[in-house]
């Protein structure tokens, strides 16, 4: 009862106070003043059967935990509620459980069965959360249970559960490192996962459990690279860092030859010349190391290396600073010098972020500027310091500015520094003075200017400034003391005023060191110092002794007594260092009988020429730590830091990254035995090849393309569904075919090819292989491009068989149809590409011209296609549809009738014209003579190429002629007069929009890529219901190609038909997609730069598909 009354009281209290903004939260107020006696109430509330009370109690308990108060005595009462129905209570119990399970191991076991039940739940999210809590309970007894749960979850259907499994791995590992081997197995399995959801988490687990097992990455390398852009941002950071390490072990240094090149004729590389000077020594060493290697084999970047660089680059645009930094370090460590520059802009952008981010970024930029100064030079002004920056940021910016200073920009930088010196922030001013000193040492030209400036600072009112200047001047003077005796004199005077010990010590050291330049002043300074010796700081005392010793050696007449006085004072000093030093020096410089041979050399010892100090950046050599890492920031190895390995001298076998399809990967379609056989066959000659190194170079080059292509399409592809990857790979296959076929054509082997096509499937397959081998021998590069798609090897059998089925289907469809008419040649390819695997097809861009000219070839081919049932369906598709339009009716034409059609062939005299075939029939009783065109009236820009005059058309005869019209991509009619020897007829030709284009061949990827660029206004979509007769793919293809002169684009999905063409005049792409849905519903999408054409085409196609 007491519990509920307390509860009510509180509620009343807080509502009367009224916290409109956050509302009433029972955890607030009272809880923070609660005392331990209330725990009894809490127990009672937890035991009650009202959820509200339980919740109330749990909230109070969580509030206690948050404050760091011990609530462990409530464990039994809380753990009972683990199976509570109320979600919030349950969640809070989980929070409690995870926090205290470690302390109450036995009791915690009570809850385990609840989670085990949860692991079997049909809902993936409940399975995941059960695993999450189960693995978070740090109780060693349940390790076997956890192991089992993780293993099971790792092969769960749901990627979300698999992700949770990946998260659980490091938890289990930290609980029991003995399980490592088993966990590695799970990691290996999860690494093969193809979903973006899992990728980040499993790499994280990999980094925690077995970062040394780099071999596990090989097979997954390319996949990780390709998935990277879609992984969530935190996972990206982890993956990029891991891949940086991986790349360092697997690829060659891309800058190996850089130095050689630049020394040879590096005129064009002026951008980096400036650091070349600095790095010269280093470069030379490196060069010597690698020159032998380099000479033997010119550096070719491994395509996988390139893949990584290319796929990470877009992430520089991430909103997450950690991702940007990760990419930046990857480029810094892995990219060729010329490409590293891209990261500068992104890093400079981060300087706008929170000061903590700035702090880390500036640290890294400071390291980078030492190695690659040129990169940040254009952004010099971004590092200018504002008075509102925190001091630590100011000092880092100063560091960067100093590193960036060179002959050309030093004057601006020094001017900036001048304003900084007036700052109110004294630490910053001191740092500025040191920066000036460093600029002066690095850049000879400004040394005097800097020195003068610093000397002026000596009269500054602020002692700190003066002191810092003295220290810096001392270092500068050491470089050329003889010129600056007046500065030394000036500084000698300062000893009266300056109190900062470091500065005093510096002045004394200077005077002692160069006492020969100031012979009169030096003894006087010593005299003054001797007077104040006892009051000086220790470092000053030491320098006084030094000064005395040096003067004694050079000018013993004047200073002997003073020296002895100083030494005597020092002998009784409190500090033992000083007593020691005094004793030592006395023995050394004052010759006595006891002193040995050493005193003869005293002068040499004390007044030896000392090398000038090098003012170095504290960031020098920090880059041996991986940039962006904690270790780099601290300049000390942090626990768990993985050393960034050096580049290997020769690249390990790149073939390890080639992926074979494994049965164990559920998402991948099974690989047919044929595929494997093929793979092996190709691999052999390939790797035994002497230039095997550069082989895969090209090979993977096309891979990222497929990756990027599919990415660009839309989010739906990003889901990484297996069908997509199949599609793209398939299309790359067809790519290859095209390529192949083109080469063939050049070799004029067309006929042979056609024959092959008519052969059985098996033999054509064999042929292909034979061909391939021949080509391999011919040129390496060709074979590589083949190898490329082989190595991907993901072309699935299923897709193969699919297309086979398709072919058969087509056979059936086609056979009853009449043989095709002439002129349809180029239409053939549209559906031919469906058969991509079986035979090469002539590509339209090459053929049309000659086909038109050489009729014989056309007929040849025609004959072939007629006899060849495989080819025929494609040929037929458009032919039946060639539509005739009337130009002149026989009545108006007084017996002469003219029809025209668009032959869809390239008009050979002018490629920009549409060929119009005219069919003249003389129905009159008399002959018609001198048929020709006159008085052409056209819209601006349009042109007409007339047909040659037809001298005689006898009565009852017919003839054809072809004229070309450039419609300028518009459907405006071409008006002209058709003249005979007696009459003139006004006629006009108006093209349907579908005839204003000609087919082009695109692969699926190209199509997607182009389509993605033609979005927005350039895309027109319409939903439609397909005509009942036109619900199969074939019919759609036929209708579309009839309505518009487009060619079919191969497509992996049977739900979509894609078509591509170009407008005849401007060559703008026209892309059409028909996506079919259930029950005849479909969506038609047309992408075209020319919106008018697009809209008209949509109309026409709609008509064609719905009627």
């Amino acid at each position, binding site marked *: 009862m007491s519990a509920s009354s307390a509860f009510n009281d509180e509620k009343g209290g807080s509502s009367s106070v009224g916290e409109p903004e956050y509302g009433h939260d029972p955890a607030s107020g009272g809880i923070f003043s609660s005392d331990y006696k209330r725990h009894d109430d809490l127990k009672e509330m937890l035991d009650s059967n009202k959820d509200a009370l339980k919740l109330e109690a749990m909230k109070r308990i969580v509030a206690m935990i948050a404050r760091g108060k011990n609530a462990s005595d409530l464990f039994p009462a809380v753990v009972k509620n683990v199976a509570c129905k109320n979600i919030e209570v349950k969640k809070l119990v989980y929070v409690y459980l995870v926090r205290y399970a470690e302390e109450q191991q036995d009791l915690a076991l009570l809850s385990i069965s609840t989670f085990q039940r949860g692991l079997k739940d049909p809902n993936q999210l409940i399975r995941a959360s059960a695993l999450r809590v189960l693995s978070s309970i740090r109780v060693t007894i349940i390790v076997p249970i956890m192991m089992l749960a993780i293993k099971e979850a790792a092969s769960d259907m749901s990627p979300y559960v698999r992700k949770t499994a990946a998260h659980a791995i490091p938890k289990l590992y930290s609980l029991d490192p003995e399980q490592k081997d088993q966990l590695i197995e799970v990691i290996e399995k999860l690494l093969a996962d193809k979903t973006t959801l899992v990728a980040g988490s499993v790499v994280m687990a990999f980094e925690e459990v077995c970062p040394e097992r780099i071999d596990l990455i090989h097979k997954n390398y390319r996949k990780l690279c390709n998935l990277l852009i879609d992984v969530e941002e935190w996972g990206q950071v982890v993956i990029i860092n891991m891949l940086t390490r991986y790349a360092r072990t697997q690829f060659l240094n891309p800058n190996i030859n850089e130095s050689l090149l630049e020394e040879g004729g590096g005129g064009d590389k002026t951008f980096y010349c400036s650091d070349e000077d600095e790095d010269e020594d280093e470069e030379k060493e490196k060069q010597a190391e690698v020159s032998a290697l380099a000479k033997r084999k010119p550096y070719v970047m491994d395509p996988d290396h390139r893949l990584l660089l290319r796929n990470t680059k877009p992430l520089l645009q991430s909103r997450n*600073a950690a991702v940007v930094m990760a990419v930046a370090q990857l480029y810094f460590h892995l990219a060729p010098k010329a490409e590293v520059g891209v990261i500068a802009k992104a890093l400079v952008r981060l300087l706008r972020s929170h000061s903590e981010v700035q702090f880390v970024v500036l640290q890294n930029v400071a390291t980078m500027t030492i190695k690659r100064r040129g990169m940040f030079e254009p952004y010099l002004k971004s590092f200018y310091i504002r008075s509102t920056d925190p001091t630590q940021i100011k000092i880092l910016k100063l560091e960067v500015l100093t590193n960036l200073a060179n002959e050309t920009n030093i004057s601006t930088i020094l001017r900036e520094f001048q304003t900084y010196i007036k700052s109110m922030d004294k630490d910053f001013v001191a740092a500025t003075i040191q920066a000036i000193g460093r600029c002066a040492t690095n850049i000879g030209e400004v040394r005097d200017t800097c020195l003068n400036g610093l000397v002026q600072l000596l009269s500054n009112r602020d002692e700190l400034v003066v002191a810092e200047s003295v220290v810096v001047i001392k270092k500068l003077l050491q470089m050329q003391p003889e010129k600056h005796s007046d500065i030394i004199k000036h500084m000698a005077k300062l000893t009266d005023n300056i109190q900062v010990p470091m500065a005093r010590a510096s002045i004394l050291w200077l005077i002692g060191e160069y006492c020969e330049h100031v012979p009169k002043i030096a003894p006087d300074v010593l005299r003054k110092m001797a007077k104040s010796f006892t009051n000086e700081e220790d470092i000053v005392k030491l320098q006084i002794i030094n000064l005395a010793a040096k003067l004694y050696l050079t000018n013993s007449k004047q200073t002997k007594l003073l020296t002895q006085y100083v030494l005597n004072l020092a002998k009784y000093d409190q500090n033992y260092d000083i007593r020691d030093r005094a004793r030592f020096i006395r023995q050394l410089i004052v010759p006595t009988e006891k002193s040995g041979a050493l005193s003869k050399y005293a002068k040499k010892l004390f007044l030896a020429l000392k090398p000038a100090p090098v003012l170095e950046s504290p960031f020098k050599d920090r880059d041996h730590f991986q940039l962006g890492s904690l270790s780099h920031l601290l300049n000390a190895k942090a626990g768990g830091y993985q050393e960034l390995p050096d580049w290997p001298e020769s690249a390990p076998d790149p073939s390890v990254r080639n992926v074979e399809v494994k049965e164990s990967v559920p998402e991948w379609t099974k690989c047919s035995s044929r595929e494997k056989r093929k793979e092996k066959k190709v691999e052999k000659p390939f790797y035994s090849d002497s230039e095997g190194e550069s082989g895969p170079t090209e090979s993977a080059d096309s891979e990222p393309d497929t990756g990027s292509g599919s990415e660009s399409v839309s989010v739906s592809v990003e889901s990484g569904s297996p069908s997509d990857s199949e599609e793209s790979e398939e299309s790359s296959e067809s790519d290859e075919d095209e390529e192949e076929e083109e080469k063939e054509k050049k070799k004029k082997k067309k006929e042979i090819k056609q024959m092959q096509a008519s052969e059985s499937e098996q033999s054509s397959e064999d042929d292909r292989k034979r061909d391939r081998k021949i080509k391999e021998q011919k040129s390496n590069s060709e074979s590589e491009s083949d190898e490329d798609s082989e190595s991907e090897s993901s072309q699935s059998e299923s897709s193969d068989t699919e297309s086979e089925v398709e072919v058969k289907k087509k056979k059936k469809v086609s056979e009853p149809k009449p043989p095709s008419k002439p002129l349809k040649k180029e239409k053939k390819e549209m559906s031919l590409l469906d058969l991509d695997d079986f035979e090469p097809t002539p590509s339209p861009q090459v053929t049309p011209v000659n086909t038109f000219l050489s009729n014989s070839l056309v007929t040849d081919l025609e004959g072939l296609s007629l006899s060849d049932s495989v080819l025929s369906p494609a040929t037929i598709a458009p032919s039946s549809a060639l539509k005739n339009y009337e130009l002149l009716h026989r009545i108006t034409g007084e017996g002469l009738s003219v029809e025209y059609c668009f032959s869809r062939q390239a008009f050979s005299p002018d490629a920009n014209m549409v060929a119009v075939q005219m069919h003249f029939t003389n129905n009159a009783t008399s002959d018609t003579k001198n048929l020709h065109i006159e008085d052409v009236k056209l819209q601006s820009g349009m042109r007409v190429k007339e047909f040659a005059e037809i001298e005689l058309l006898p009565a009852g005869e017919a003839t054809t002629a072809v004229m070309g019209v450039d419609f300028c991509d518009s459907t405006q009619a071409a008006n002209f007069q058709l003249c005979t020897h007696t009459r003139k007829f006004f006629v006009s030709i108006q093209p349907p929009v579908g005839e204003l284009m000609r087919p082009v061949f695109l692969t699926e990827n190209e199509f997607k890529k182009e389509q993605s660029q033609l979005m927005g206004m350039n895309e027109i979509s319409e939903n439609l219901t397909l005509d009942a007769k036109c619900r199969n793919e074939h019919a759609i293809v036929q209708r579309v190609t009839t309505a518009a002169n487009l060619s079919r684009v191969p497509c992996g999905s049977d739900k979509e038909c894609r078509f591509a063409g170009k407008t005849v005049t401007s060559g703008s792409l026209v892309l059409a997609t028909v996506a079919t849905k259930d029950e005849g519903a479909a969506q038609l999408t047309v992408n075209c730069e020319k919106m008018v054409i697009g809209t008209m085409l949509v109309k026409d196609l709609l008509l064609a598909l719905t009627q």
Partner: protein
Amino acid sequence: MIHSLFLVNASGDIFLEKHWKSVVSRSVCDYFFEAQERATEPENVPPVISTPHHYLISVLRHRIYFVAVIQSEVPPLFVIEFLHRVVDTFQDYFGVCTEAAIKDNVVVVYELLEEMLDNGFPLATESNILKELIKPPTILRTMVNTITGSTNVGEQLPTGQLSVVPWRRTGVKYTNNEAYFDVVEEIDAIIDKSGSTITAEIQGVIDACVKLTGMPDLTLSFMNPRLLDDVSFHPCVRFKRWEAERILSFIPPDGNFRLLSYHVSSQNLVAIPVYVKHNITFREGSSQGRFDLTLGPKQTMGKAVEAVLVSSQLPRGVLNANLNPSQGTYTFDPVTKLLTWDVGKINPQKLPSLKGTMSLQAGASKPDENPTINIQLKIQQMAISGLKVNRLDMYGEKYKPFKGIKYMTKAGKFQVRT
């Protein structure tokens, strides 16, 4: 990764702790307090502190230190970025991120932290997903909860995490469909003593508030996309599309989010909207200094300069200032020596000025440092770079949304050296 999190307030009390792995004693924060003491200013506490067994990575926001404890190598930016994301989430949930707000909502905070990290590795940081899991507290919901006994924790399971667009929750419904975009540009500049510009650049952001039903696919195009030199996107933006056509194409998250931030290339000359005439002098020997400041509009394209606020850190030697503003009010804090002058709107006919004397410590020599003048201002309905949104289209949904675009120019880090 992240082991534990401690929240420390300005007076150095730990008022919240959360552990994701084994419990780390709060005594680890002593190292942090040490560093805090050493630092003269609160923002000078190093973000990364190394202790014998742990590393402390901290951020300071809203006068609260968020101190993360980590044990082994991890990219420091990873942690810093995450901590900032935590603060942003709190702000999103509670409106403000203050000690009081966190204490009031300690349970929600705890639930959030629990969801955001799993074993120290970020799990759900998208506000859309989090809001699906844990409903932000509102008056109405609290009332309903107390009556019906329901909870803040979402009954639905976080389906968003499974979707291909994890930033957008599913099943969004609005009666009024609207999409607002704010183009906000900030001028960062350093102006010389003589009034010439040392460096000036424009940084801009496009913040969006999208309340649209279903799964809309938006495209936003610019009249002059070439102005944008360097951009960073919300993950929803399709990068390839931008690369190819300079069009922003995206499925937006629900609610408020930052669509992109950009930098206008430094080649373009930056219009500086105001000029400052200043005369701040200290005479040797006298305990008086003169202070004379006049503001005027410069290149504002005819728009009014509003909400002008001038602040300046005066030298330590200044005891007090006796000034006379022609408009607005000024304050001088004799402890921090911070002078602020709230000018308001600049009237081009009657330029605002602040004149008067400063009294210096008697006997002290004249300060040789010059104060810098920081200026804040706002110009409505104009993006100073000239960036213009061309059009906004929506695909994928049938309804007609209400669209709005607002431009604004602000002064970012705008400093005048004297």
